[in-house]
């Protein structure tokens, strides 16, 4: 058990890192997913392969990239290809094990909205849109989501489905023929949500000190809990030390919240 206190971002990042398996090919985004992958690579998954939507394969960044297309991703990488190639030869072809996703809203069936709040043609709040996430959600073998647990981020239904979870149920996603397995785990600052046999997100684990009541209060539908809700392994000093001293020494992503 760590004697140190940690931020919500550190807690999510460490729990996401633990989900990665050695040898996984991961489609990485900037920010927390990048940190989670690098943490996994320095702990239990040394042969993790990081690929970026900008067309970089086997990146070994020397500094924390601000953008998904930072030059540090290229210098020392094992390969660079065009965007068409990264999305077709790698993602569409089925060469990506894990994708990380995020968005403004995640609903009961793990669908993600990163496009718009309100009507699409008359947006109340216009968000950035899909970028690569529509195909990552469709085609990566497994998808993971990290997001703070807040009611507005977990509505019963998204205003717009940018990236598919299980639509209105697992059978509906399967009927589309999309190759990927959909969202497998959602890591929040309170615990872990996973889809049940029908694709509905349920609470399967709580972080130490967090409660089911807190989860219910911060979720926009009557969220069910698994029969046995486990407690996640406490954050260790080793994990925190790697994050703070090696990966994000300026606290660009991990401080605050």
């Amino acid at each position: 058990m760590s004697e140190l206190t940690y931020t919500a971002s550190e807690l999510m990042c460490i729990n996401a890192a633990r989900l990665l398996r050695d040898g996984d090919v991961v489609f990485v985004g900037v920010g927390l997913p990048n940190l989670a992958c690098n943490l996994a690579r320095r702990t239990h998954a040394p042969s993790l392969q990081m690929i970026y939507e900008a067309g970089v394969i086997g990146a070994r960044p020397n500094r924390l990239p601000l953008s998904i297309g930072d030059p540090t991703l290229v210098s020392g990488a094992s390969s660079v290809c065009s965007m068409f190639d990264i999305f077709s030869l790698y993602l569409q072809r089925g060469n990506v094990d894990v994708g990380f996703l995020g968005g403004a809203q995640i609903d009961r069936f793990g669908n993600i909205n990163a496009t718009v709040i309100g009507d699409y043609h008359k947006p109340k709040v216009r968000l950035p849109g899909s970028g690569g996430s529509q195909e990552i959600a469709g085609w990566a073998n497994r998808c993971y989501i990290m997001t703070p647990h807040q009611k507005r981020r977990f509505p019963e239904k998204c205003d717009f489905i940018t990236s598919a979870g299980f639509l209105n149920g697992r059978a509906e996603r399967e009927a589309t023929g999309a190759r990927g397995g959909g969202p497998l785990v959602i890591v929040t600052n309170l615990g872990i949500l996973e889809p049940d046999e029908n694709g509905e997100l349920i609470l399967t684990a709580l972080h130490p000190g967090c409660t089911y009541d807190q989860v219910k209060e911060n979720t926009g539908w009557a969220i069910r809990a698994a029969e046995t809700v486990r407690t996640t392994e406490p954050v260790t000093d080793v994990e925190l030390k790697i994050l703070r001293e090696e990966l994000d020494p300026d606290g660009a992503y991990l401080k605050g919240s």
Partner: protein
Amino acid sequence: MSKICSLAEAIQQFIHDGDTVFCAGFTHLIPFAAGHEIIRQGRKNLTLARATPDLIYDQMVAAGCAKKLVFSYIGNPGVGSLRIVREEMEAGRLEWEEYSHFGMISRLQAGAAGLPFMPMNQNAAPDLEKNNPNIRRVKDPYSGREVLTVPALHPDVGIIHVQRADKNGNAQVWGILGEQKEAAFASKDVIITAEEIVDEDVIRSDPNRTLIPGLIVKAVCHVPHCAHPSYTQGYYDRDNVFYLNWDKISENRDSVNSWLDEWVFGVKNAAEYWEKLGPETHARLAVKPRYAAPVNYGDY
């Protein structure tokens, strides 16, 4: 015949009001100097296409150049929202047509290859397809299953920034390749801007690195530092400080207009703009060399 001309001449000759323009570059090699020249020349009613409109189109939209955006991600990469574009869309003052990244580059790939459309596998996401009539389905004649399709994109003009080119437009690129090649082949007219104009022998010493052949290029412009605040791999770093600052500048129109007055209308060209950034910024963006091992083509 040499295709060398100034950037101002190239914009004057090839970009007309109402054109569809594709300023290429995924985070890397974004031709900001060309965007600024289009603003200075007062082009209007353009359809601006790019996967990530980035600050270049935020600035062009703010300056009143655009009628419509075609895009797949309207964020300030690593920072947040593209405030001007977002405000114009929310206010109903800007038309748009939206894809995913793969949809967008598949449109270019079709355009570049002379095909009418590109098929894509099902991705299960329903709502963009519902709202964009250009995203359609056809039956795969071999399996009988449906695939998604997007139509070929043919920009009137593609502007592609590169590390080096010769006077005929043979252009070499390294680092993130984005959609540079597809954008060039899809466009009717191609303007190359280059950090360096080199002798044809330099290009011929490493033909595998030539991404864009001169035969599809109309104009070649020597524009060092063209990509700032984006970057050119090996030449200068991305100006992340400016990307963060733009988030503040673009909070209101007065500060955007003063910025345009000072940094676009207030300078003659990219060289003056770079000079005006000053030695501190130059030093901050300087990058130490890291060379590739040479390859042996063999003397046949």
